[in-house]
């Protein structure tokens, strides 16, 4: 069962990622990225991270991708011209990516002490997670909340029309 679910959603993930690269219209890329993120949520659930699966759907597939699709529609982003990247990307980038993936795959496949996951593994409950988060890591949590607040203010300041030159169009 775990094997079937893993292959199904890993396939969805890879298909969505490849579709993101092949589509020329940004809205199609955004929708395939939503497929990738939702299948990743199922994979998190298979690995026993129930809170992260929910947060992945709510934060990534919900909030962030809605922001992306909203901006795509707001800017009326059309079809992009298809190029295969610059010359530097073709000559240096793609061999480098191939080498990177080969090195990573070799390292992963040669690691001997990796365990395996099955459906009857214990699930990290939200209770365990929040106990560590709010006891040991309370300060980083609060700092992150300040960071998000600053990001909101920065986003509003950046996206507002007219930067103090009196040409505010409403």
């Amino acid at each position, binding site marked *: 069962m775990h094997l079937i679910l*893993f292959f199904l959603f890993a396939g969805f993930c*890879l298909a969505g990622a490849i579709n993101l690269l092949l589509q020329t219209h940004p809205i199609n890329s955004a929708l395939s990225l939503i497929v990738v993120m939702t299948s990743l949520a199922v994979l998190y659930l298979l690995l026993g991270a129930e809170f992260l699966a929910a947060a992945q759907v709510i934060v990534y597939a919900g909030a962030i991708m809605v922001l992306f699709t909203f901006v795509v529609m707001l800017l009326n982003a059309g079809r992009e011209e298809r190029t295969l990247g610059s010359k530097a990307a073709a000559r240096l980038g793609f061999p480098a990516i191939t080498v990177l993936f080969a090195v*990573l795959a070799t390292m992963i496949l040669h690691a001997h002490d990796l365990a395996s*996951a099955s459906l009857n593994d214990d699930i990290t409950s939200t209770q365990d997670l929040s106990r560590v988060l709010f006891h040991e890591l309370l300060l980083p949590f609060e700092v992150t909340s300040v960071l998000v607040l600053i990001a909101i203010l920065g986003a509003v300041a950046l996206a507002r029309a007219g930067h103090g030159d009196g040409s505010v169009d409403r």
Partner: protein
Amino acid sequence: MNFQQEVPLAWYLLLSAALFSLGIVGFLIKRNLITVFMSIELMLNAVNLSFVTFAHQWHAVKGQIFVFFVMMVAAAEAAVGLAIIIAVFRARATLAVDRIDLMKL
């Protein structure tokens, strides 16, 4: 018993590496500012999958909490990044990265 089958964690890590590589390929070949940004989000997600896999491997809760922090920072980054994209579009009236090659307006 077919329902007791186990999946090696190496497969999850391989999937994560593949998604990360696809993210880099997208970063290189996409020519739209928004899709380049989406490729960065794809890479962040790939790294998150690695974190969750290792958290499962070592039975460590802190790995999952790190993913939670990465999600929060990614949300902040997406908000600021998209605001910058809107500002760039307002100044240049284009989203093609080939035509956005100057820092000054």
